[in-house]
């Protein structure tokens, strides 16, 4: 069995309009690792996540999840192991109640209703919203929606949790809750974001994308303190590492 949870090798992908979104990207993620994927707008982060989950299929190269390559035939088994939380929770929550939304995945696995209930309750407890189970998702706040979207993926018990911009649109308290939650999670995690402070706190390793290529791949403290590299890639050093705006002392 491969020791890598996910292995991406020589991946290339162009959109039908000819835009080359991913160019020869390779990296591997080991079990239990927490990896941040960062890059400017349009650098290919979301496309890469779509390729990893088989929403898009590559022009060249391959993605392997465990020992299985992502192809049309293996999609069902692969998707059972990967849980993707979308950038916009409204895309992910389409049922009439939070309970039904979180139960959607387990029910598709033909689990019996007792098991479904246990999974839903466990997932809602994990994200801290058991009291919202009968609420309509479209009536909830941004933070609650995000938590429900994460629960809807956790209920499928994935090995890998993939999140696209998890802190976008959250208020500071909801963001802090999410960060603490992510830190406590034992899953292999892949997180894309522009919120580099969050990446700093939650990820062991960072992959920087620039124009669809890997510009850097290394330990979080090394990459996120490299101002020159980040500047070249349309990013900047996390706020928590910049000079204090009041006293001007570098932290």
């Amino acid at each position, binding site marked *: 069995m491969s020791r890598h949870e996910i292995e991406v090798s020589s991946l290339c992908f162009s959109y039908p309009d000819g835009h080359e979104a991913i160019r020869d990207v390779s990296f591997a993620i080991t079990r239990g690792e927490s990896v941040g994927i960062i890059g400017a707008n349009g650098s290919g982060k979301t496309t890469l996540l779509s390729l990893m*989950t088989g*929403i898009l299929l590559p022009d060249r190269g391959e993605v392997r999840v465990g020992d299985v390559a992502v192809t049309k035939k293996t999609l*069902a088994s692969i*998707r*059972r192991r*990967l*849980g*993707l939380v*979308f950038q*916009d929770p409204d*895309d*992910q929550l*389409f*049922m*009439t*109640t939070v309970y*039904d939304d979180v*139960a*959607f*995945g387990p*029910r*598709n*696995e*033909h689990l019996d*209703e007792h098991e479904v*209930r246990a999974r839903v309750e466990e997932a809602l407890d994990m994200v801290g919203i058991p009291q919202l189970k*009968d609420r*309509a998702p*479209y009536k909830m706040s941004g933070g609650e929606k995000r938590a429900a979207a994460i629960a*809807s*993926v956790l209920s*499928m018990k994935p090995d890998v949790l993939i999140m696209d911009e998890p802190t976008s649109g959250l208020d500071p308290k909801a963001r802090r809750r999410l960060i603490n939650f992510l830190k406590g999670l034992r899953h292999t995690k892949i997180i894309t974001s522009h919120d580099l402070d969050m990446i700093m706190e939650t990820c062991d390793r960072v992959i920087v994308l620039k124009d669809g290529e890997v510009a850097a791949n290394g330990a979080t403290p090394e990459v996120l303190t490299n101002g020159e590299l980040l500047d070249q890639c349309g990013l900047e050093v996390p706020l928590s590492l910049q000079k204090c705006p009041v006293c001007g002392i570098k932290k």
Partner: protein
Amino acid sequence: MAKMADLMFNIRLLDDLARKNTSVHGLHPVSKLLATIVYLLAVVSFDRYETIGLLPFVFYPLVLILLAELPVVPLLKRLLMVEQLIIGIGILNPLFDPKGWITFASIMIKSGLTVTACLVLVSTTGLDKIAQALRTLKVPGIFVLQLLLTFRYISLLTEEIARMARAYALRAPRRKGVRLKDGGSFVGQLLLRTYDRAQRVYHAMKLRGFSGEFHAYGQSKITRKDILFLLAWSVFFIAARICNIPVFLGLLLEEMSKG
């Protein structure tokens, strides 16, 4: 414009109503669905000149609205939206048929009754459970799925319209609607946006193992109460269809006053 957005947003109302917890909501979906089907068949099978005989059928939606504590005004608004179309269909009857006004009235009553019954069914059951009931009754999965996805995507579409209409209204404060000149790009934009959104929702479903079939939503068992509901109403509908109850009551009163 803001009113339009409000109206569009209210499409979720039926979903909200379906989550209430009354004796009608607690009935088994199959029982309510079958009762509604018998009701619809009985109402539409009346002769085109019949009006008085249809009156007893008002009871069914009325009783259910009261028991399920449904708000009358929003349901009426929805009924009126459909009735506009029905007027369009029936308005020419009086011109071509000497008894046209009667057939027109009959069409209006029949449509009013059937649409209300369906609104009551959806707002006391919820479309997810109706779909499940249809599957229990062996309706092919593909049709049920079509129904469910149409319902889901209608709300996505209307929300998208509401959002665009708001953005338009804020930048064209003195206009009442969308200018014809902007109409093309408005509709085109809407189509593309909805298509994108639908695609994303579909991906979210596929990623969670969706394979073309919605699965059981904690199906409860049919109880004696459900069977009684179905039987009692069905007997009433069939009786009201076979014998003209208002005329019968009128004759009875006449006899009694003579006697």
